[in-house]
């Protein structure tokens, strides 16, 4: 199921990851939709699926482009094609990644980490959400912090990625007993408790898929 990848970050890497993620998200679509219907309005899964489809369909247009251009095209596609919170947040993610300096040089693992960290920071600013608010940021921010540690530390890469998989899963499960203070679930007060946040679940699946493909490479 997981496609072999040879790079840490490139247009082809992004497309092949999008294809892997699409399979995993489709497999878990019913679960994510049900989570959203418990505490939201059920649009999250359709937005994520629409976004992935749009990115995968971009393949022919962007496969020969330099990374920065490819990222910008993905960003615009995601931003204009999805809508809702997911469109704004993931669009912001790719747009900010594209602004990382020196993208025309070879991207090593540390550089790829830096790009993802930049992207997640921008999402945090756009959504004005931090950890503990029962959103996808509960998964993404701790992952970003761990990437920062890996970037400057001596941990072996595969070991680090395994730790990230674990962090994402723990944090996703941790949203279950949180009160929501951001997003549509925030309107529920106590009633949001007892349900995993659908955005946290979809983000965790995305991280899980990417990390596993890198570990198995």
């Amino acid at each position, binding site marked *: 199921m997981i496609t072999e990848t040879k790079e840490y970050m490139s247009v082809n890497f992004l497309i092949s990851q999008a294809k892997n993620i699409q399979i995993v998200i489709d497999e878990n679509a019913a679960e994510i939709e049900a989570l959203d219907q418990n505490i939201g309005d059920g*649009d999250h899964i359709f937005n994520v699926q629409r976004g992935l489809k749009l990115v995968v369909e971009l393949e022919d247009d962007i496969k020969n482009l330099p990374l920065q251009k490819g990222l910008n095209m993905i960003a615009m596609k995601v931003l204009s094609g999805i809508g809702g*919170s997911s469109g704004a947040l993931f669009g912001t993610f790719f747009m900010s990644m594209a602004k990382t300096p020196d993208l025309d040089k070879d991207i090593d693992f540390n550089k790829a980490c830096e790009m993802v960290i930049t992207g997640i920071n921008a999402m945090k600013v756009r959504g004005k959400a931090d950890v503990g608010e029962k959103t996808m940021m509960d998964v993404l921010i701790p992952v970003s912090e761990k990437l920062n540690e890996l970037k400057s530390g001596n941990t072996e890469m595969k070991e680090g990625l395994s730790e990230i998989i674990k962090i994402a899963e723990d944090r996703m499960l941790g949203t279950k007993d949180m009160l929501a203070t951001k*997003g549509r679930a*925030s309107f529920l*007060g106590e009633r949001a408790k007892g349900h995993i946040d659908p955005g946290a679940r979809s983000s965790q699946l995305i991280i899980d898929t990417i990390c596993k493909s890198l570990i198995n490479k």
Partner: protein
Amino acid sequence: MKKFINNVDDFLKESLNGFGKAHSDIIKVSFEPNFISRKTKTKQGKVSLISGGGSGHEPMHGGFVGHGMLDAACPGFVFSAPTPDQMQAAAENVDSGAGVLFIVKNYSGDIMNFQMGAEIYSGKNDSIITNDDVAVEDSTFTTGRRGVAATVLVEKIVGSLAEDGGSLEECKKLGEKVNKNSGTMGVAFTSCTVPAAGKPTFDLGNDEMEFGVGIHGEPGRKREKIQPSRTIVNNMLEAILDDLKPQKNEKTLLFVNGMGGTPLTELYLVYDDACEILKSKGIEITRSLVGNYCTSLEMQGASITLLKCDEEILKNWDSPVHTAAIRWGM
């Protein structure tokens, strides 16, 4: 799911097509990016008002484009916020140089996408955020209250001031005043079905209602057994009056809004109950609006909005308006 659909993916496009054809005397629909604008160009010096949000709330907002209300509306997918390129294209299309005021309902997705639209639009612009729903608590640390039916009132009243030559600052100030002086509470008897989902968003028992429901079928304050209309309306009004705290004999506008699946007959019954209850509390109703204006697809239910009115609000409420959904005085 029983709906008039040919193909789920074409749902929005075909509906917008029909809207454009049915109201070609007032508006025109542009695609990719999608927006609805007035048929006539914004006159020089008039501030342009642009709103938008997920589809499924019709006639909100496309039905409010026209003389005396909006200049453009940006429809997103059903219940999903529109995208920044829609706001940018709409703004470029309608701005006559006096600036653009974006009217945004307080939902995270709408806020983020409108912010990005405002950032990429190069012309002068500002935004107001409506948050009239008293069912949820407001706090500076949270998303806060939802923007719901009072958005209709904001668009009508600010639209009138913009038509009369009000500046961007004046329009924003009036919009914020209307928002601050209004409170809304909604109740649902049934769920609604998002076309892409194909099944109801939530389950409600035959004898149950969702008190404090939002406009996307997202759950509300609490689930209760259904009660006589007078009791439900009384509970809704209590929540609103607790929040608005109107003075005795204060003039108000009473707006009974249908969620899409409740007949007008019932909405007028709700209006009657609300009138009697407000009268007993010494609150004067000087203006009214009853009908389906801010809907949640086919959801059965209604919301009540009360707006405290001063002379400026009344004058701008009464002024002529000509849109697909609201027309008077011309």
